[in-house]
């Protein structure tokens, strides 16, 4: 469902200046005691800012989609309409999850101070809260998976730069003023900018007979001697240019059509079975990790391995169709898989890997060495503090 067009002036003002919220969020990050005494309070503020930001982004996406634009100015795709509602809830949960974790921890610590026997039950509250949050996110994502007909979940946020929204809203205002029915020209300029990252269409196979012929360019006298390699390269360049032009024309044509943005999801992918299994594993990976973490404890390798195995299995299933059945991944799917691959780095700072190999090992030695240099000492202390804080909270490193 596409959200309604904003009418309130305050909302319009906020939408047109939503990027400044990022500045506010950065300021909150550096509040005194952000990771110390006032951690809960500042995290609360941060969560509120995040919720506001995600709400504004949700509305901004709605504005873009209702104006028939599915890409923001930096080339990123706006989630399609059938994503928006569920994704809004997921991002809301994500905005609040850290706050709730901290709240549960703080409550636990207060109880610890008054009655140390209640330690376990308080710890259990924290575990239960995290479990509920992870389960809630998994259920929401599962719902999204059903909505997308088993397609890979490629959208995880709906960030829209405020300048894009501002341009559209201004145009709409101008249109109203001038009573014009034509499509706004500025919108087109945004769309035209989007074509920059459409170069994936240019991967014409030019492995052989390419321009890197050693014998063509190594002699100054040769420049005027035209060879067959030169001709082929030139032809390929022309074909590439023509394809590009054709692609751009198609894009422009599509963008001029009012029915471009699909309100309904596409049919199930050809590799439906494997892709769905991959997605389900990806969705439930954090739940599996957290449950096993609660069962086996922080020092056990089992949760770490279970999570990694689930992650790798998910990736294998998701890419199975591509490698075995030659079903090509879309650009968004490839990007998403790449994003997931990058998230694997979190395994380096999760327990017990971090303690075993990084924390007390290499990193500590390296940082201690750097601390000997006077200028770095304060910086290193801050960095170590940040690292320790990041590792004490599950959601900082959960990548869920």
């Amino acid at each position, binding site marked *: 469902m596409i959200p309604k067009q904003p009418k309130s002036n305050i909302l319009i003002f906020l939408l047109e200046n939503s990027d400044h919220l990022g500045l506010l969020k950065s300021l909150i990050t550096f509040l005194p005691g952000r990771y110390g005494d006032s951690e809960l309070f500042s995290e609360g503020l941060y969560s509120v800012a995040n919720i506001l930001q995600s709400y504004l982004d949700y509305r901004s996406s709605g504005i873009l989609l209702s104006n028939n634009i599915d890409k923001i100015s930096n080339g990123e795709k706006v989630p399609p309409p059938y994503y928006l509602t569920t994704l809004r809830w997921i991002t809301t949960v994500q905005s609040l999850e850290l706050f709730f974790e901290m709240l549960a921890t703080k409550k636990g610590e207060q109880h610890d101070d008054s009655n140390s026997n209640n330690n376990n039950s308080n710890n259990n509250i924290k575990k239960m809260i995290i479990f509920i949050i992870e389960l809630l996110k998994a259920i929401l994502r599962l719902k999204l998976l059903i909505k997308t007909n088993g397609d890979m979940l490629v959208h995880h946020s709906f960030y829209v730069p405020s300048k894009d929204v501002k341009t559209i809203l201004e145009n709409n205002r101008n249109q109203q003023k001038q009573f014009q029915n034509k499509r706004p020209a500025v919108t087109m300029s945004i769309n035209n900018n989007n074509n920059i990252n459409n170069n994936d269409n240019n991967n014409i196979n030019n492995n052989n007979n390419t321009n890197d012929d050693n*014998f063509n360019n190594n002699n100054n006298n040769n420049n005027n001697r*035209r060879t067959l390699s030169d001709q082929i390269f030139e032809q390929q360049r022309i074909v590439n240019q023509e394809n590009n032009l054709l692609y751009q024309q198609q894009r422009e044509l599509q963008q001029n059509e009012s029915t471009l943005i699909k309100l309904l999801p596409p049919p199930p992918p050809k590799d439906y079975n494997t892709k769905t299994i991959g997605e389900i594993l990806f969705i439930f990976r954090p739940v599996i990790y957290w449950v096993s973490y609660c069962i086996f404890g922080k020092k056990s390798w089992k949760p770490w391995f279970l999570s990694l195995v689930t992650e790798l299995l998910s990736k294998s299933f998701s890419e199975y169709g591509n490698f075995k059945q030659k079903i090509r991944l879309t650009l968004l799917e490839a990007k998403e898989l790449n994003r997931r691959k990058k998230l694997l780095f979190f395994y380096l700072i999760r327990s017990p890997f971090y303690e075993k190999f990084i924390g007390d090992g290499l990193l500590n030695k390296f940082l201690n060495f750097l601390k000997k240099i006077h200028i770095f000492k304060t910086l290193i202390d801050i960095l170590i503090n940040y690292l320790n804080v990041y590792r004490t909270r599950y959601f900082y490193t959960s990548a869920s």
Partner: protein
Amino acid sequence: MENFQFEDLSPNKVSKVYQDLKKFGSFLYNHKMGVFLVSFSSGVAYLYHNITQSHKRKQIKLAKERVMTYFESTQKLSEREVDAIITKFIDENKILDKIQTPSLASIRSEKDPSEKLKLTDQLKVSIITKLFSVLYIIPMVTIFNRLQINLIGKYCYLDYVLYKDQEQHSMRLINQQTESNFINSRNNCYFFKDINFSQFINLIQEQIKISLKDWKIDQQSSFEGFLKLLINIRNNFEKKEIIASISSDNSLLKYLIPTEEEIDNLVQSQKTPENDNDIEYQNLKMLYNEIRNIFESQKFYDVLKDSINQSFLEFTKNLREDFESTELKKQIDSIVLPDLPIEMEIPKPLVTMHNIILLPKINKQIGNIIVNKKSIIEKIGSTDLINQLNYSVLTNDLDFNKVQF
């Protein structure tokens, strides 16, 4: 290396090793879940890696093998073709007879001293010209034919070889007519065309005339002295700025291919106002342009130099035997060998000889080289340099990892 000592395997040490192994076994048993998870995750990681990479690696490997098989077979084909070309033009058509050589009998019968001198000069020049012609023709034709075959391979067959099992219809970038016009064969060899080959011979002859000015026929020559003479003459042809510069007047390579003007004329002659049917000649022109570019490259110069060295080495190795003195060797052996504590082969001593005796021997060696040309062609063809150059011409330095299968 330290010597192995049995003390190292004393019972205490054996039992310690046994204990350690036992500890390790119990460690594995106590952490069986961990071991299972590690092996399971490694298995999954391996499978994942296999699924993603093995197919492409296999395709790359197969493609490389196919290209290499094609390359090797075409190089062999080229060797046979070069052998056939040289046999036809030198053995059968006696093309070297263009170099007029006076016979020793005619020199002896000549009474006029100035005429006699002129004839002897002509004899030495013609024999050395023949020698240089043969020693240059073999490597030049070999390398050139290879280049031609590999350029044709690049434009006509590489795609087919690469994607053999991909059911892709590869397209020839040049047609068969252009291919047969371009490739030298025993029936169509530009190099051995009358006027062109005469010019090639003249160029060598003129240079040799100058170089042999002080090399009198009644003088004596040592083997080393003759080698120096060969090097001096070779320097006149083989300097990079001369041989690799196709526009240079003294470049021998320019006789291998038609000049740019000749090609332009050919293209123009095929073009008619009604019909623009000169595409195959345009392609031919571009192929020759590519050959010119290769001729001027450093890689080619290295290959050419190496190949010419191979043919000269074959000749000098055989000529050395003519300078060896068996009698002198026997004398030395009888004096030296009985006193030597161990058996050893003393190289045969070399003697000097009159140039009038040397020249017929050189002439005989030229005949030997022509007879044994196949082995020289094979030697040239088997060097790494020539294979590297031609492989890079065929594949255009293709990065197999980037090929889309």
